[in-house]
């Protein structure tokens, strides 16, 4: 047992402030345990999301000492516990209450993506090597930490013209599926605003599933977009041979 100090955002989108708490904690506790203990002992109406407490559902995203992380996978031991620990809600989305933010925008973006569309004559056989790439993308737990940290959304607020790394990952998984037949490249170039990403890789750095978002999803998509819309040689080639 020892005691730690926490500074937690309390309030709604209209008004709010950081409140300080002192709390007894034990060996091995994660930040989410500390929040739970606060709820049980001092502040039962402290709002925060969580489900699995095992880094599997992506509910408990927050900014701990300024870094976007999962509260259930951040051990107190790994933080400088002799100083006050700051816990804030995700900055990129509107605050609902305390640590819970309104992430509904993400669900709207997802709806716009053309879903999996298998080729009509597809054979449902493929090998592991065909899907290794997409399986990496499908590890995504929708914690939206990448969306939170991506400066295109976080700083420049381009929510209306940009889909964000989470959905580039999703579209990469669909585009690279061996038997998917839909074409999402025009959407990626225009509505999803792939060009706004300047590959600065913050999304990759925060991803709790260690998905190489930038290198494996975004850049390959950018290259596909270049093939289609920018590279004169490829465009000419396609015109000549009437390929897609």
């Amino acid at each position, binding site marked *: 047992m020892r005691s730690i100090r926490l500074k937690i955002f309390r309030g709604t989108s209209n008004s709010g402030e950081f409140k300080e708490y002192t709390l007894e904690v034990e060996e091995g506790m994660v930040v989410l345990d500390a929040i739970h203990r606060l709820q049980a002992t001092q502040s039962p109406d402290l709002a925060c*999301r969580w489900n699995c407490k095992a880094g599997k559902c992506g509910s408990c995203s927050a900014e701990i000492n300024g870094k976007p992380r999962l509260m259930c996978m951040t051990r107190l031991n790994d933080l400088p516990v002799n100083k006050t620990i700051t816990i804030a809600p995700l900055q990129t989305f509107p605050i609902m209450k305390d640590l819970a933010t309104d992430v509904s925008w993400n669900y709207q973006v997802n709806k716009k993506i053309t879903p999996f569309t298998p080729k009509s004559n597809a054979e449902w056989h493929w090998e592991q090597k065909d899907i290794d790439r997409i399986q990496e993308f499908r590890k995504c737990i929708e914690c939206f930490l990448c969306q939170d940290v991506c400066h295109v959304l976080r700083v420049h607020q381009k929510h209306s013209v940009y889909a964000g790394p989470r959905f580039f990952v999703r579209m990469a998984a669909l585009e690279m599926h061996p038997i998917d037949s839909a074409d999402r490249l025009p959407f990626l170039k225009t509505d999803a605003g792939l060009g706004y990403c300047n590959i600065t890789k913050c999304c990759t750095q925060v991803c709790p599933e260690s998905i190489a978002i930038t290198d494996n999803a975004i850049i390959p998509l950018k290259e596909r977009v270049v093939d289609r819309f920018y590279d004169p040689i490829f465009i000419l080639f396609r015109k000549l041979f009437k390929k897609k």
Partner: protein
Amino acid sequence: MDAKYTTHEFDVLVIGAGGAGLRAAIEASANGLKVALVCKSLLGKAHTVMAEGGIAAALGTVDSRDTWQQHFADTMIGGNLANHWQMAQIHALEAPDRVRELEKWGAVFDRTTDGKGNINVRHFGGHTYKRLAHVGDRTGLELLRTLQDRGVHQGIEVFMECTVYSLLKKENRVVGAFGYFRETGSPVLFKAKSIVLATGGIGKLYRVSSNSWECTGDGFALGYLAGAELADMEYVQFHPTGMVWPPSVRGLLITEGVRGEGGVFRNNLGKRFMFDYIPPKYKDKYASTEEEANTWFQKVIVEGRKEETVKERKPPELMSRDVVARALWTEIEQGRGFEHGGIHLDIATRRSAEDIKKKLPSMYHQFKQLADVDITKVPMEVGPTCHYMMGGIKVDPETQGSTIDGLFAAGECSAGMHGSNRLGGNSLSDLLVFGRRAGLSAAEYSKKIKTFEQIDESELDQLNHEMNRPFENPKGENAYAILSDLQQVMEKGAGMYREEKGMMNCLKELDQIKKRLEKVSTEGNRMFNPGWHTALDLRNLLIVGEAITRAALIRRESRGAHTRIDFLNYSESFSKTRVIVKKSAQEMQVSSENLSQIPKDFEAELIAKNILNEVVLNQLRGKIAAH
């Protein structure tokens, strides 16, 4: 009019957005109906995402000997014949189609390495052959995400972070549901022609549990309060391998996949003790010596030989969960556990570090990040954890209809499929098979109903007032304290091992907790207030706790997950009954009814094919001694 409360009208209302709820909603909406899906957390976060090991279906892609009949038999034997045989049959028959359908909707299962490019399957406890389609150790995530993407593009309307507090009835028919949005706390009314309950499990009733906060038994309680019958409530599964340290992650699941990949248990004497715990029903199927088990391991897991070519039998670590959990519990009780009160599960000395990281990535990370333990170097310390509820709302095996008109149930909150013990991987397939059936039946039911019913506003006022009570009560006890006491009472009185005196005591204590709950108070207001949510959830947990205890009290035998210290054997008379719990005017009403039995000719056919074993059947039916 009910304009006082925000009102929505839907042909089919599905409560719960886990695998079962989503699958039901997809089916209902594919039938052209207006469907709403309500869930307590965000879409895609339901408990189903946590499922790791896989989804059981006799695809036969790896072991060609596998058939649906074998899957059926494994399910029945695993459930100690307490299953509703017809559900087990439908499940075994339809599971392969449901898995392949999932693939058509975009799921990306691991593939076989034989160049044929089929869905790969793996071993799991109690399954005779390799049978679990999987995606690494995140199968539930794959399943949920696939259904979610399918669902939202099909025009299902989703109400997230919305809790249903009560079902509404007209005579013996459900006509709607009343609840609140978690964010704002504002009440909401759903009028519906039919309702599917798919609210998942009850794990939060026990102190050590692998379940998420959502698992507060809401569906059981909603159904019960509306007058539906509950069945098999005594069967609560404890998974043998939960984490035991550090305290904050106690109960967190360690996938059975660890044993599937070769992991073994050892006690503090260094002994691999599972050989001492093989029950008669598994005597033919599991290795009797360490040497045999190791040869099997070497040939099948390390060299990857086809199992049909190997004459050795599987290691006993791969037996069904009830058996393994009891073995671990006994070892720990008798003082052969380790420092944090667990048993060692060792994969480090069995597989190379690379293999472990590749086959069990999330286990590796879970231990590394949460316990600072490198499982490629040292054993994990594990102990039993509350995992799954076999019992639930009693349903018709084909339509999933409850005893109330228009109310259907699927997934973990329904009863019958798993008997007294669920086999790993059988839940995910259960969600799909019966989720689909529930959605279909609900759609058909709704099509017959022409109009939405009027709902009496005073009834809603009453409910809303009830929900508000924690704010109005004078400052008293907070909900967390009550929850924590409730969990302890249940662990002590109706946990893994049960006896009459303990359970009687437990009922008394539950009664006291009920009284305390009436006075529970909450701070703040209705906006996103976890303290308030917990207070409301407690009502449901208490109902479920009482149902479990009362049902367990009645069943004077040990069967599967239900172990009575005072009645250790299978009983012939109890083997033919199932316990039913129902609401009555005063208190909970408990009774027994006949359990439908496998038809004689079907049974004979399976015995002739060597899929079922007559001796084992007789043991489980209490006709001959089994211990």
